């Protein structure tokens, strides 16, 4: 610096000294100086303004991580600027102060510059890396955007699937399900064609059932055993197939490039697949085939998510179809049941009608058949009592016998039909059992002695004397069985034995259903009728009790009879909760008929019934009714007159009345019997009976009341019994009937039989 100063001094002294002399050389140095001066000025300016700008912009920006660096850098620049500024003063002669300032500035500048340079080594890589990160983030953002786009698409597809599922599951109609599926799939995936192949009934072919484009596809079929089909059916995933396979060739071949085709199986689940124990397995072996085709001539390819969508849809369709199938089945079953119900109802009504018609017919025939029989028998018996020649007598006897037989036959048939439809009811009453057997014996003895058959009766000692049951029918059974025994035996003996059945003898090995339960009030009577007759072929035994059948052997012996006897016996025995069967060792070896019936044991309250025992054992006594005061109430003049005539003929003293009031006015204690026509229209005869009861008190003293009616149905009988009438008899009444009714009334105070 000293040298500089000296130089400068020298120069300036030279210049000063040569001021006057060398003037033209000075402007060259002055120009340079001037330029340097200006440049330094501008540099300084720039140096000062850059930091300002930096500060300004950094202040403006929100984030800048390197403030400290900026400060340093700013300082560096400022000091450089200062240096250059101060340079401006050093061109000319300058004082020592300026030189000091200059030096300080330069030193400072050098310091800051070095520091900055050192720091920049660290900072610049960082700054550079910011840029890199920015680029990276941008790339990532772009990628995320793309992915978001994909997810959105997927979600949208998912929504479509849900919508489709909902639509499919909201209908139970098979066609709607399939149509909706195809349409929605087509829309969702923008398919060109979508088709469904269903297996035919035989299961050997697949038939094109639904397509998207054509509403009613022609019945294209493909055999089910194609390799491509097996491939699709073999997996539950979507399988890409060739557009040329027969299932995919649905559009007429054109010039275009067919789009990609996929196919998936749709399991057709059956009702029987839903076992309770295991879920339906997909090895149901019945699948439909769904084929989906992308538009041709587009570069579209099947994406994974689209395939997944198809799989999901296929599953849903399978479930929806199975529901529809279940519904169809149940509807069909219900329709079938309804049809059957209707048919059953019709059948029942028809049966009822038939039964009614039959009953009507029987009711009419009953009357129709009995009437002529009655006439024949009555007239023939009357004829018998007239004077006849022996031939005539023989003829009349034959007529009588035949007509009696016919009457029995008619009764049998009518009985059986009543038995068949269960309308027959037993007339339960107390009766004397040994007496019944003895009566049967006495009836059969004459015939047996004619055939020289020996008949024995053995009653066990523990048989009760009085039992409760249907006496008439029991007698009928016995007579039938014993009669058969006698009929079919040419010689030998017939033995009848009766005893109380013990538990071991109650069971017949041939009839395991027959289960006898003896109880306190009942016992089982077992009767065996053994004969030494022609026997029965074991093969015929089951048919014995069927109607109208007779074995050959029987027929040839001209046995006669209807063949109904045993059938009727069986019915009666069944009604008595018993069992009947026949045993035989074979033809010519005789046979044994055995039956068991349930009878009641009369309890302590049989004292009141004892008087009734006498009823059947005694014959009807021919009591004269001379002077018996009776009252006849009937609103029909003719009918009244007839009844009066009837009673008068029997010797009664008859008063007739035609109305209820008249009856109540006229009746006195002296009238023993009141005959009341209960078919009087509009008058409550039952009421009259009640009044008579009230007026005359109980029993012995009050008139007995007997109802005359045209019909003997249960209702009428019950009504009569309810109001305390003492009997019901059916019009028309014959003389004999009236006679017996009157004698019963007077003996027992009540008419027990009405017919």
């Amino acid at each position: 610096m000293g040298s500089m100063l000296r130089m400068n001094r020298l120069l300036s002294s030279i210049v000063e000294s040569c001021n006057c002399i060398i003037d033209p050389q000075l402007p060259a140095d002055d120009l340079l100086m001037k330029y340097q001066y200006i440049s330094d000025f501008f540099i300084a300016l720039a140096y000062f303004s850059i930091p300002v700008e930096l500060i300004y912009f950094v202040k403006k920006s929100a984030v800048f991580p390197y403030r400290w660096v900026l400060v340093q850098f700013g300082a560096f620049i400022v000091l450089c600027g200062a240096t250059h500024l101060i340079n401006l003063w050093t061109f000319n002669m300058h004082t020592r102060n300026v030189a000091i300032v200059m030096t300080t500035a330069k030193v400072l500048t050098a310091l800051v510059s070095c520091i900055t340079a050192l720091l920049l080594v660290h900072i610049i890589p960082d700054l550079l890396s910011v840029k890199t990160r920015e680029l990276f983030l941008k790339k990532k953002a772009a990628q995320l955007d793309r992915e978001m786009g994909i997810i959105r698409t997927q979600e949208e597809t998912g929504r479509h699937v849900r919508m489709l599922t909902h639509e499919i599951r909201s209908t139970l109609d098979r066609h709607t399900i399939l149509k909706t599926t195809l349409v929605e799939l087509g829309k969702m995936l923008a398919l060109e064609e979508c088709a469904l192949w269903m297996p035919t009934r035989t299961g050997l072919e697949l038939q094109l059932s639904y397509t998207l484009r054509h509403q009613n596809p022609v019945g294209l079929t493909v055999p089910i055993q194609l390799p491509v089909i097996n491939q699709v059916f073999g997996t539950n995933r979507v399988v890409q197939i060739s557009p040329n396979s027969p299932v995919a060739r649905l559009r007429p071949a054109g010039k275009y490039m067919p789009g990609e085709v996929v196919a998936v199986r749709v399991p057709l689940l059956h009702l029987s697949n839903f076992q309770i124990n295991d879920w339906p397995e997909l090895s149901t072996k019945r699948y439909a085939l769904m084929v989906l085709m992308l538009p041709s001539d587009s570069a579209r390819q099947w994406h994974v998510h689209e395939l997944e969508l198809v799989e999901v849809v296929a599953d849903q369709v399978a479930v929806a179809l199975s529901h529809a199938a279940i519904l169809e089945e149940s509807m069909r079953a219900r329709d079938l049941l309804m049809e059957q119900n209707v048919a059953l109802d019709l059948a029942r009504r028809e049966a009822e009608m038939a039964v009614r018609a039959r009953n009507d017919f029987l009711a009419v025939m009953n009357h129709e058949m009995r009437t002529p029989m009655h006439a024949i028998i009555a007239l023939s018996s009357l004829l018998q009592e007239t004077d006849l020649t022996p031939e005539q007598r023989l003829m009349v006897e034959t007529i009588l016998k035949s007509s009696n037989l016919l009457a029995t036959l008619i009764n049998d048939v009518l009985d059986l039909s009543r038995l068949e439809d269960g309308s027959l009811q037993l007339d339960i009453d107390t009766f004397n059992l040994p007496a019944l057997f003895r009566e049967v014996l006495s009836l059969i003895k004459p015939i047996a002695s004619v055939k020289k058959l020996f008949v024995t009766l053995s009653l066990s000692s523990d048989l009760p004397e009085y039992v409760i049951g249907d006496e008439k029918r029991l007698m009928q059974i016995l007579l039938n069985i014993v009669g058969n025994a006698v009929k079919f035996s040419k010689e030998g003996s017939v033995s009848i034995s009766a005893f109380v059945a013990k538990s071991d003898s109650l069971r017949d090995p041939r009839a395991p259903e027959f289960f006898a339960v003896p109880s306190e009030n009942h016992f089982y009577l077992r009767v065996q009728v053994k004969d030494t007759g022609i026997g029965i072929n074991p093969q015929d035994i089951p048919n014995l009790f069927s109607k109208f059948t007779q074995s050959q052997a029987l027929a040839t012996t001209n046995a006669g009879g209807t063949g109904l006897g045993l059938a009727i016996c069986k019915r009666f025995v069944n009604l008595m909760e018993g069992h009947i069967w026949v045993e035989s060792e074979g033809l010519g070896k005789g046979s044994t008929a055995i039956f068991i019936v349930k009878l009641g044991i009369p309890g302590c309250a049989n004292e009141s019934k004892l008087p009734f025992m006498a009823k059947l054992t005694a014959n009807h006594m021919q009591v004269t009714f001379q002077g018996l005061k009776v009252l006849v109430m009937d609103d029909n003049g003719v009918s009244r007159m007839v009844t009066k005539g009837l009673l008068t003929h029997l010797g009664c003293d008859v008063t007739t009345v035609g109305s209820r009031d008249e009856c109540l006015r006229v009746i006195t204690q002296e009238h023993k019997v009141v005959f009341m026509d209960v078919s009087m229209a509009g008058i409550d005869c039952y009421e009259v009976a009640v009044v008579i009861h009230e007026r005359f008190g109980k029993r012995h003293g009050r008139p007995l009341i007997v109802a005359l009616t045209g019909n003997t149905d249960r209702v009428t009988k019950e009504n009569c019994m309810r109001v305390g009438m003492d009997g019901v008899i059916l019009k028309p009444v014959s003389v004999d009937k009236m006679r017996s009714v009157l004698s019963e009334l007077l003996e027992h105070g009540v008419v027990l039989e009405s017919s």
Partner: protein
Amino acid sequence: MEQLQRKLAEYTTSLYNENILDEQFIQLQQLQDESNPDFVVEVVSLFFEDSERLLNELAKALNQANVDFKKLNAHVHQMKGSSSSIGAQRVQRACIAFRNYCDDHNVEGCLKCLQQVKNEYTLVKNKLEALFKLEKQFVDAGGSFPIV
């Protein structure tokens, strides 16, 4: 005399065969005895009177604009009762049919039935009158009646 007897027997049998009379009539005849010699004729005359009255009532009732089926039913019931009491079977049956139509409130049917009943009644009346005439002839000729 025998001829008359035979004729009477045949006539009677024919009546039964044709169901014009049934065994109730026989019963009536049985009731006729010394104390009641004209029982049958009396009853039958009463029947004729009664029936004619009833038939008139029936015709009147059916001619009404508003047919009273209850009354109709009552009358038919009476007629049925009477005819069954003497054994006029066909009349009785016609009455039963009449009743059915009554229950069905079938005026047409009732009219038809009334005609039917009238016919049957007329028939039985004629037949019975003929029978009585024959019987009278028989009795006049000296015959006596065992009940046939």
